[in-house]
């Protein structure tokens, strides 16, 4: 006769000292874990709810004396942001301390563009007072002190017309300005070294390609997006759309792709090698999109609109991932991602630069490993159950201000009725006689070489 029974000793299960962690035994046998799926679903539901509960993206507002017209981040320093306002004032901000470090005073009219040099030591600002100024951008001091006013730019360039935008070259001491024409300036010269023009239009934004040092793109008031190469004396290619494009941003990781912020409430992502059709149309805004900027990861971008909201889109997402608005925020004229991709800045007409979290419910500060794992688990749960109706409803829900909500509803109605009409038209005409353009091509008027 052989007898063996379960015999556990409490000493083995107990920890030796009070400082030790408690011993944990796992037995992964499914028989001991009933209701796996139901539990996971419940957890996913809770995770989705918690995500919405903690979605408090607004962090701080930095004030100016007039509406914000442009923003720029320093490519070499995470904590630094420059903002230009309609009264000609440029301010350098220390983001973690949420204070102004320096005011760059000198422009007599609205500052329309700021760009920081690739080494992060200086910045160029352009204004409607027909000047471009180059300023030293100091380090952020460690101690708080009085705001220093700097009225002495290092260099000053004067042009013949009001400037609308500026972008500094990624490598050379050169920058491009947009106004009545596109001009390339050198730090050493007081006159532009190169001038491009294609028709008589105003250039509203200029952006250098981050990978190909000689290529840059502009948008103009003639509804065109033009691509230029510094090595040739004429522009390479131009795309004319039905409505004006306000701003443009290159994808920093796939530098042949760029996204254009259009007046028709949509953003269009194009491949510069194939301009015949947009690769993605991003919609959700209800008014003109004013500015767009990519995250350094190249997977997301932020856009600000005239409808008083900023939205974050994923690279290939047709609809926005998140929408940011406050009661007091007015028309958004400038948006920027932070250098680490975890914050978003928006500059609006109500004289404030606002700092937002890029991920609305993200926990700030140093995370313990357990916290990090928990967040990852919750995220995976929501991702896995996002198709289930209850989870989808919670994840999708965003509160919108009444004007935006109503406008979006109206817009939806219009689009639906148009679609219905087209369907009817197709059904009641000879097959093949009604040509329907896809949304990606609909707004393209012409492509010029």
């Amino acid at each position: 006769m052989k007898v063996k029974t379960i015999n556990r000793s409490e000493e083995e299960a107990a920890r030796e000292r009070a400082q030790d962690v408690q011993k944990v035994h796992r037995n992964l046998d499914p028989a001991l874990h009933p209701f796996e799926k139901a539990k996971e679903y419940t957890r996913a539901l809770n995770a989705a709810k918690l995500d919405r509960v903690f979605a408090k993206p607004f962090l701080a507002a930095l004030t100016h004396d007039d509406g914000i017209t442009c923003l720029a981040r320093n490519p070499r320093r995470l904590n630094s942001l420059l903002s230009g306002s309609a009264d000609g004032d440029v301010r350098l901000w220390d983001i973690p301390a949420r204070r102004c470090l320096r005011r760059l005073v000198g422009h007599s009219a609205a500052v329309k563009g700021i760009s920081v040099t690739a080494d992060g030591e200086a910045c160029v600002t352009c204004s409607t007072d027909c000047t471009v100024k180059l300023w030293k951008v100091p380090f952020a001091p460690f101690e708080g002190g009085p705001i220093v006013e700097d009225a002495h730019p290092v260099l000053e360039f004067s042009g013949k017309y009001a400037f609308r935008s500026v972008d500094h070259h990624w490598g050379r001491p050169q920058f491009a300005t947009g106004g009545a024409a596109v001009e390339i300036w050198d730090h050493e010269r007081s006159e532009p070294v190169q001038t491009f023009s294609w028709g008589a239009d105003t250039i509203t934004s200029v952006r250098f390609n981050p990978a190909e040092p000689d290529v840059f793109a502009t948008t103009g008031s003639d509804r065109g997006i033009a691509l230029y190469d510094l090595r040739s004396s004429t522009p390479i290619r131009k795309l004319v759309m039905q409505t004006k494009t306000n701003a443009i941003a290159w994808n920093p990781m796939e530098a042949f792709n760029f996204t254009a912020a259009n007046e028709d409430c949509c953003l269009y992502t194009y491949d510069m090698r194939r301009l015949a059709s947009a690769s993605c149309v991003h919609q959700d805004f209800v008014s003109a999109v004013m500015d767009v900027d990519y995250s350094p990861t190249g997977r997301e971008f932020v856009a600000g609109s005239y409808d008083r909201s900023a939205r974050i889109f994923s690279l290939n997402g047709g609809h926005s991932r998140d929408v940011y608005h406050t009661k007091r925020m007015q028309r958004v004229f400038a948006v920027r991602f932070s250098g680490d991709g975890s914050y978003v800045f928006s500059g609006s007409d109500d004289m404030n630069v606002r700092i937002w979290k890029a991920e609305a419910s993200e926990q700030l500060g140093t995370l313990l490993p357990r916290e990090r794992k928990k967040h990852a688990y919750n995220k995976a749960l929501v991702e896995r159950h996002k198709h289930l109706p209850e989870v989808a409803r919670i994840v999708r829900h965003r509160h919108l201000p009444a004007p935006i909500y109503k406008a979006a509803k109206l817009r939806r109605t219009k689009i639906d009725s148009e679609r219905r009409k087209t369907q009817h038209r197709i059904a009641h005409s000879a097959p093949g006689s009604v040509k329907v353009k896809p949304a990606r091509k609909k707004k393209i008027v012409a492509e010029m070489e």
Partner: protein
Amino acid sequence: MDEQEGAVQPAPKRQKSSSGDVSRAAKFRRGPEVATRRIEDKKLKGKLRYTERLVGEAQAAAAKVDEWLLPAEPGELEAEGMERTWRFSQAEIVDAGEAGAARKAFDLSLPQLGPYSLDFTRSGRHMLLAGRKGHLALMDWQRSRLVCEVQVRETTHDVTFLHNEQFFAAAQKKYTYIYDKRGLEVHCLKDTTEATRLQFLPHHFLLCSVGATGVLRYQDTSTGRIVTQHRTKQGPCDALCQNPWNGVLCLGHGNGTVTLWTPNVSTPVVSMLCHHGPVRALAADGQGRHLVTTGADGQVKVWDLRMFRPLHAYFSPSPAEWCDISQRGLLAVGYGRRIQVWKDALSSKQQSPYMTHTLAGGTLSDFRFCPYEDVLGIGHSGGVSTMLVPGAGEPNYDSFVADPFQTRKQRREAEVHQLLDKLQPEMIVLDPTAIGQVVREPREVQREKQAAAEAANRARLAEQQQKNEEKKRMKGKNKPTRRQRKKQANIVEEKLPAMKQRMREQGVSAEFGHKHKAAREEAGVPAEVPRALHRFFKK
């Protein structure tokens, strides 16, 4: 493959796992693998393949944990030579067993207030006793420590622990009461009257009761709300058990039927005629595969809970009053003073029991297997005793499910997590794996639906047409609504097939709108005649 050999010799890099590993891993497989080969959508295919890989890795990791990190082996009782395991008495087993095991076999002589019913916590550490005459006692039985004792001076039919050992419910003469671990009455559940059997669904926080009125009540113990009350309409009910796999309650009735209930449906989801005569006791196994019923007709029947079919039946010389199934699938059946324990009795019919035991103290009233222990706790008319049943309990516990050595802090933490993971009563369904699954309609059903929709459409069109033709009067023909309705009748769609048919018959090609030459000649029209004059020729 020999494990030692594998350790000594350097194993080849991409070695297939041995058959032992495969069978071990099969335990952790959830459902069949998704066939991705024929999926056309590349993104979906990639995602599914990635998920499949993760699932495979998790399965392999779980199998490894199972192999290396679960140290304890289940208990066993082996006979040598001419011995038979069912001939061993408890005294012999206790003598032959280890010293620790001997402490677990005890007899509590409580002859005045019996017979006793009992319950264990889910970790098996605490035991709850309830004497019929109102004696309630909560024991930390493995340490032989009495936590609380109370005399309620009222008939007590049944007791059950709530989500942990802090609270327990007792079905008393009129109402059901909830007590805390100090023995203080916390709640009187005035809605739950005349309950005789209690069950607690720990994942849903539902206290279920049924009794003389034949009403099955679900009460949420975290909110206090009565979730549902089902009138069984089968008279007083004295047999209740839960299926721990899906939370469905099984009720045994006086007319020999067993009904399965969920809170969502007001009628039984399943009703089975199991016995010729009243059903005495029920027990479901841990994975929801088998149900054992005992009836007054002397039968002990094993049912397949997925197909709802009898598997096999045992005959007990006098009707079995009580039965229970242990974590590792041992079946205990009791009547009078005798208890039999059967091994592997669920999957196949056995010829002889695994163990037998005769109570010295009194007649049996209730017994339960203790989770994670090789112990059967028995309540009888003379008190409470325990019986060692080697191989009954799961040897390896999971600290996050039920920990016999849980500290106070761990208990508090676990309580919070239990509440966070509380399942809604609506999630109790017969197949718990159906939650979060897409139910795709079979192709035949889809086809039928499509055909029905088309038929309805045709009928509507015909009806409309008939209506249009019936009306001869012109009055009201040109009303905007009528015009709209006519448009809606979709004239093109309706006339197109007939038109095409006509054109085909006449030999007119749809593209050019004129007849084929051959067709014209066939119709007796000379080739040089212009089209406008065709109608003057006989067809």
